[in-house]
C-alpha cells in the first residue's frame, strides 16, 4: 500500500481491513492514528480492548483500579488464571501487547473520580464505558459531555445488555437524558448480587468496539439516538428510539450539572468501606 506509510508488517497484519470496502488504507490509517480509552478492564472492557488492539487502534487506554479475581475469569477474557491477584490494567496491557505489539497501550491503575476524570479523559478521541457501577457511569457521561467527546456506552445485567453512542453537541441524547439521576441505593442490583451470563459482556463489548471503529473510520451509521437492547435468552436485538431532553441536567438548554459529581456514597452499589462497616 503506497501513500499511507504502512510498514510491510502492517500491510500483512491489517490486510483483511485494507482490502475491505469501506475501511481500506485510509480507514486503517485512521485507526492507527486514533486514541481510544476504555473505562474498566472487566467483562465489557476485555473484548473492547482486545478488538481495538487487534484492529490496530494506535493508542488504547485502559482504566481500572481493581485486581484480577478468580471469579472474574468466567467472563473477563483479557485476563488468565496466571493473572489472579495482579492489577487488571497490568494483566490487560500484557494481553493487548501480545495481540498487537505495534500499538501503544496506556494504563491507569486508578478509580475514576471527580478529581481526576477531566485530566484522564482529556487526551482521548473516544471514550468507551465498560464500567460496572452507576457512580462512574454518571461521571464518565458528564465528563465526556462537558469535554465534547463521543462516549460509547454499554451495560449488562444477568442475560440482558444495552449499548448506544452518546455524541455531544448534536442535540443527541446523553445518559442523563435517559436517566437524569442515579437510582437510590439498593433499588438496582449489581452483577455481584444478580450474577451475569458469562458470554453476555462479550457480545455487548464487541458491539461497543464495533461502534468505536465505525466512529473512527466513518463507516456505516453510528448508534446515535437509538438504544440497542439485547436479550440472550430469546436471542433478540431490539432498538429503542431515545431522544435529547431539552431539560437534561448536563446537555439540556440550562444545564445544572456543570461540575463532576462523586455519587459513591449514595448510589446503587454500596462502597467497599460501607460494606466493611456493616460487616
Amino acid at each position, binding site marked *: 500500500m503506497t501513500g499511507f506509510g504502512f510498514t510491510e508488517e502492517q500491510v500483512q497484519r491489517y490486510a483483511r481491513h485494507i482490502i475491505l470496502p469501506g475501511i481500506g488504507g485510509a480507514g486503517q490509517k485512521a485507526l492507527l492514528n486514533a486514541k481510544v480509552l476504555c473505562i474498566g478492564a472487566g467483562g465489557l472492557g476485555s473484548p473492547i480492548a482486545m478488538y481495538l488492539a487487534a484492529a490496530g487502534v494506535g493508542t488504547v487506554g485502559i482504566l481500572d483500579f481493581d485486581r484480577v479475581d478468580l471469579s472474574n475469569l468466567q467472563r473477563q477474557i483479557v485476563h488468565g488464571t496466571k493473572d489472579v491477584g495482579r492489577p487488571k490494567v497490568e494483566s490487560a496491557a500484557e494481553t493487548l501487547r501480545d495481540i498487537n505489539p505495534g500499538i501503544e497501550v496506556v494504563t491507569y491503575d486508578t478509580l475514576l473520580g471527580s478529581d481526576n476524570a477531566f485530566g484522564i479523559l482529556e487526551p482521548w478521541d473516544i471514550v468507551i*464505558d*465498560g464500567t460496572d457501577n*452507576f457512580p462512574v457511569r454518571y461521571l464518565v457521561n458528564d465528563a465526556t459531555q462537558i469535554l465534547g467527546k463521543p462516549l460509547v456506552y454499554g451495560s*449488562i445485567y444477568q442475560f*440482558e445488555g444495552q449499548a448506544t453512542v452518546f455524541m455531544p453537541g448534536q442535540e443527541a441524547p446523553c445518559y442523563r437524558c435517559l*436517566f437524569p439521576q442515579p437510582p437510590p441505593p439498593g433499588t*438496582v442490583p449489581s452483577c455481584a448480587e*444478580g450474577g451475569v451470563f458469562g458470554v453476555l459482556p462479550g457480545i455487548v463489548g464487541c458491539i461497543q468496539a464495533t461502534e468505536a471503529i465505525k466512529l473512527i473510520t466513518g463507516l456505516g451509521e453510528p448508534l446515535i439516538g437509538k438504544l440497542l437492547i439485547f436479550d440472550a435468552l430469546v436471542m*433478540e436485538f431490539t432498538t429503542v428510539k*431515545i431522544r435529547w431532553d431539552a431539560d437534561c441536567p448536563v446537555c439540556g438548554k440550562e444545564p445544572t450539572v456543570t461540575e463532576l459529581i462523586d455519587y459513591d456514597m449514595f448510589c446503587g452499589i454500596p462502597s467497599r468501606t460501607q460494606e466493611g462497616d456493616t460487616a
Partner: protein
Amino acid sequence: MRVVANGKPREVGPGATVEDLIRFVGLDPQYVIVEHNGEALERKRYGEARLTEGDRLELVRAVAGG
C-alpha cells in the same frame, strides 16, 4: 384492553396510562425509558399518555453491570 409490552401481552384497565403500566410491571418510572408505538416518549408525559388497544411499548430500565 390488551397492549404489548416488551413483546408480551398485558391486560390493562380502561383509561390506563403509560405510568400505570410501568408501575403495574413493578418498575419505577424515574428509572425507565419508554418507546410507545415506535416513538420515544418523554418522561414528563408518562402520566398523561393513555394506552389504547394494541399499543406496543418497550420499557427499558437502567442497568449498570459491566
